[in-house]
């Protein structure tokens, strides 16, 4: 067997009669907090999927989830997010801080924050996380900006969307 690793493997995962309820969806809540003038981003992703995507992308063999978690995981997660997730407010690319992550059952929560946002006239979100590894991946973005609620359904074919506010 050669050492050439498969960099991007499209797995055709057949559906078995098992418990793991395989569906490729991630949920991201994006909420604007007027009091702190910040954008709070909460990502909810299946640990298995993120693990596989990151390991395949960076050719690693990391195990997510305590207690055996590798030390450099946060670095890779941040890199991976930065390569796949962008937030543009009023046509400007915004820098977000990685606050941390938490595990719950088979899901990982990742918390990001964008600070110093005076107003939002329009907001554009791109999220192509997991799509290179799982072609059916859908990333749902639930936005709550002042009184406006909007949901983006991002797919491989359309991995970004824009919301204009009054």
């Amino acid at each position, binding site marked *: 067997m050669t050492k050439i690793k498969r960099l991007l493997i499209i797995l055709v995962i057949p559906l078995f009669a098992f418990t793991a309820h395989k569906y490729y969806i991630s949920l991201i809540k994006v909420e604007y907090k007027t009091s702190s003038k910040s954008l709070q981003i909460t990502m909810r992703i299946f640990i298995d999927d993120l693990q596989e995507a990151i390991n395949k992308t960076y050719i690693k063999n990391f195990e997510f989830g305590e207690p055996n978690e590798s030390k450099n995981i946060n670095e890779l997660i941040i890199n991976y997010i930065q390569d796949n997730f962008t937030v543009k407010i009023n046509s400007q690319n915004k820098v977000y801080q990685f606050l941390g992550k938490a595990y719950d*059952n088979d899901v990982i929560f990742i918390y990001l924050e964008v600070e110093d946002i005076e107003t939002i006239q329009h907001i554009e979100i791109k999220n192509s996380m997991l799509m290179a590894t799982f072609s059916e991946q859908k990333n749902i973005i639930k936005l709550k900006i002042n009184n406006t609620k909007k949901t983006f359904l991002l797919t491989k074919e359309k991995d970004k969307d824009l919301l204009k506010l009054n």
Partner: protein
Amino acid sequence: MKKISLYVFSFLMISSFTFAQEQDAQIKERKPGHTSTTKFRQLKQELATPNSQHTASGAPGHAYTQQQVDYVMNITIDDKTQKLFGDEVITYHNNSKDQLEYLWVQLDQNMRAADSKTPDVKQTTMEASFNGPVTFTKDYLKKPFDGGFKLEYVKDVNDKPLSYTINSTMMRINLVKPLAPGETFVFKIKWWYTINNYINDGGRSGYEHFPKDGNNLYVIAQFFPRLAVYDNVEGWQNMQFWGRSEFALEFGNYTVNITAPSDHILNATGLLQNPKEVLSRTQYKRFQAAKKSFDEPIIIVTQAEAEVAEKSHSDKTKTWKFYAENVRDIGIATSRKFIWDAMAVNINGKTVMAYSLYPKEGNPLWEKHSTKVVANTLKVYSKYTFDYPYHKAISVHARQQGMEYPQICWNYGRPKEDGTYSDRVRDGMIGVVTHEVGHNFFPMIVNSDERQWTWMDEGLNSFVEMQAEFEYDPNFNTRSLPKDVVSYMSMDQDHLSPIMTQGDHVYNFGPNAYSKPAAGLTMLRNTIMGPELFDYAFRTYSKRWMFKHPTPADFFRTMEDASGMDLDWFWRGWFYTTDYNDIGIKEVKKYYLTNKPTKAAIADAEKYGMNLDDFKDKLVYFISEEEIGNPNKAKKVKDFKMLDNYLNSLSETEKSRIKEAPNYFYEVTFEKPGGLVLPLIVELTYEDGTKERQQFPAEIWSKHDAEVKRIFASSKQITNIVVDPDLETADIDITNNSWPKKIESNQFEKFKDKLKN
């Protein structure tokens, strides 16, 4: 005797009389008429008309019949070429009252044939901007894998070739003469096919190759041409096998002889007829000893023995003989690498064997848990349905697999190379073993049509699975409680399908067929029916349809029939729609008692032409919090002499029915922005810290779908009201569930606060 005419009117919430409103309203355009749209209408139009095969009670009727198909087959698994060779004699019993002009035979491996249409219904896009050589070769250079059935002959009992027509995964046997009711048709098929490497090519069966020792682990299923189901629900269930929706199969008796390399350890559905021939003397002794070992598993084939076998690569063969009675399918697992352990399980006086087969790569996790989980599953499922009727249940370790067959199943859960495993891996393995072994009950014995209704076995199984998991480990992280399906049910409606949708066309298959039905059953058991009524009805359904073919209507009807509860509103909402639940508190109005006419009372008296002076000291008035201003001015029940007099005038029997006097009256308006109707669970907290739970049946929403009001009258003040405090009803938004409204710091803020500390 002076008649004390006493009127205790509630002038509280006199809803304005309709005639008053009508006079004010403009003459609107008359709406057209409508059919019944109440959410409580019976499911008469949705369910098939009851008949003498599937009755209105939900039971098999007096005219119920089903076919039976028996097989005698010889199978050879060629480890060198990864090919499976077989020949079979099929005896088809037409127990129906119908003439059959043809028979349909399922050729499931054709889903993997080179010309299969399964890949043609998938979308293909320019996904990767670059490929390594393995992927590129697989996608663009290699010819497609040809794993389809190669038929050598299809002939009748006299060896005359039969006319047949193949449509992808279905083959029609064109009978020369129709098969009459009660008649039997015997025919023979010989075939072979190339077994797929399921790690590379996917699939519910196939083999995994282990490069280190050069061995294969085979999990073989759907390996023989077998009959499709014929009944009076679908006629012939010959919907194609595209790969997702699973199988519809008849019961029958199987004689199966399997030839594999002599250094393989093999097990399959059925009673092993020749254990002494295929096991060594030591292994046979252990095999027998296991039958008496109820507390701990006994290892029949040890890891050391498996490691020796891994190196032998024998050219000789052995034939394992099985006889399986009244099963709907056969599964086979075989490998040089197998360790085999076994434990006896007492199911209400009968001994059932729990077996596990796993390579060393499964240890130490598998030795620790697998057989014990099998045993636990058999015991708990037997409690909820019926005593497990077969003689054994096997859990086979297979990477990335989770699939069920009668008496044998494949399960994932592999530790890392150094033998360590996370809690997640362990819980995943315990969950999948429980789930797959549980499938023996649904659909192997309660044999529903999986091709049409995935949820009937997956949903019911996932529900009982949770009960088994809780018994194995009370802290087990189950995933199909009502609160676990909230994120699924609050998804974008465009990507939701009702549970009652044929599986191939469903979005988000997992939650749709597994966790949402299981969560629904949890609600039925814990919240709507209560465990006693539910368990009896569920057991009734299971026993009625043991070794038969039930339909969804049979399940829905039986649950009602055996419990005395009307559940059509529940089936309709939860199974037939993508409606979600959202119940909350809109408003709470507090009232006290007073003996003086209130503003509202004066207004109502005017309306009715009453003079309140005529009723001085004869009425109890309800006064709102705003109007009274100072609550100390409120009266208590004991302050009303006329009430005292009235109570004293009651008979002794009536007196005994008088309860504690309330002084505070809360009119609570509950709102229901969600479409589903579900019980209203209310928790009241009183000023002294005590709590009280009240649950109103779902029927409360019948004539008040958007909003309904209830009065809570109490001698103590209420400080908090919460709807569904234990999250039993899959409420997708709990921000409206509390009074006073809870300013819930959201999840993000909670995390930030945690970081600060």
